[in-house]
């Protein structure tokens, strides 16, 4: 029992197959990653005095979601092979 994955969340996750989770929750995570990457590119192109600070803020969510995305895609490909 941790704040990271509480028991009720673990049980909820276990009640669904990975296929279902990767096409629902995984998709939500990937969509959010896409939105953040677009925002990152817009901020990077427009620049401005506070661009670096804003990019740092976006990176807080982008890198963890990117790691999750890589994990979801790798496991999905492995399960298809």
């Amino acid at each position, binding site marked *: *029992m*941790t*704040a*990271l*994955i*509480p*028991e*009720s*969340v*673990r049980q*909820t*996750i*276990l009640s*669904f197959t*990975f296929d279902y*989770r*990767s096409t*629902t*929750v*995984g998709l*939500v*995570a990937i*969509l*959010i990653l896409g*939105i*953040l990457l677009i*925002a990152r590119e817009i*901020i990077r192109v427009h620049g401005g005095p*506070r661009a670096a*600070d*804003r990019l*740092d*803020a*976006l*990176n*807080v*969510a982008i*890198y*963890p*979601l990117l*790691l*999750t995305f890589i*994990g*979801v895609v*790798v*496991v*999905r490909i492995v*399960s298809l092979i």
Partner: protein
Amino acid sequence: MLDQTARIRRLQLPVARAVASPEVLVAASYLMALSLAELLLLSSGVLAGALAHGALLLMLIAHYVAAPGVGYRRLLLPLALPSLMRLVGLAVPVVSTPQTVWLVTAGTPILVAAVLCARAVGGVRPSMLGWPRDPLAQLAVAAGGLMHGLLAYLVLRPGPIIARLEPAQVALASVILIVFVAFTEELIFRGVIQSVAAETLGGPAAGIAVSVITSVIVYAASLSVPFVLLMAAVSFFFSWIVKESGSLWGVIGAHALLVIGLLIVWPFVIR
């Protein structure tokens, strides 16, 4: 009588101003939104929960990016961490059941997020993770984690996260719990959220309040009222220790012993 009323008004005014300040209202609103997202996750399923946490995450980041001049800005990014934690936890690409694998796959992105957030908002002072001023006091705080773990186990009675009480399994699971649970969660709740809330909301009491409330919201998913109350008390104690000592090591040690006891040792010792 009039004199007394005027005196009461004079006393109430700063409190009312502090409570109604934009910083407190914004923090309270986002904490309520976080509670709602957790409630949706527990009542309506993983997709609704993921959408709610995802929307809150985007809202907090957009607010941070779009509001450069406001006083509460630095608090917005740390408040996004619990939603990110839940979103990553739900999307974790695990097909097998060993909980240690879950903790590593979900914990790695969250540890990265906590470090990046601490760097972005400058919440964690170097002294918090440096050599503590009073190492013996920190050791004493850490040792208290044994008792916290026993209490938590007696309240919640979870199953062990390892199959057998073998040295190799215990050592590996302990390292995982120390890095991805104790260190990561303390860095988020006491290191980043508490420090930044104290600085932006005007005092250490506000920092402790925000840190404890956030911890309680994420622990509410245990669906056990006694456990949530215990974790609220433990969170308050940890926050107070960090405020007084200025170091995270004692509470990281205590949190580590708490989870090692709760998820590895006590389930085998007390049946």
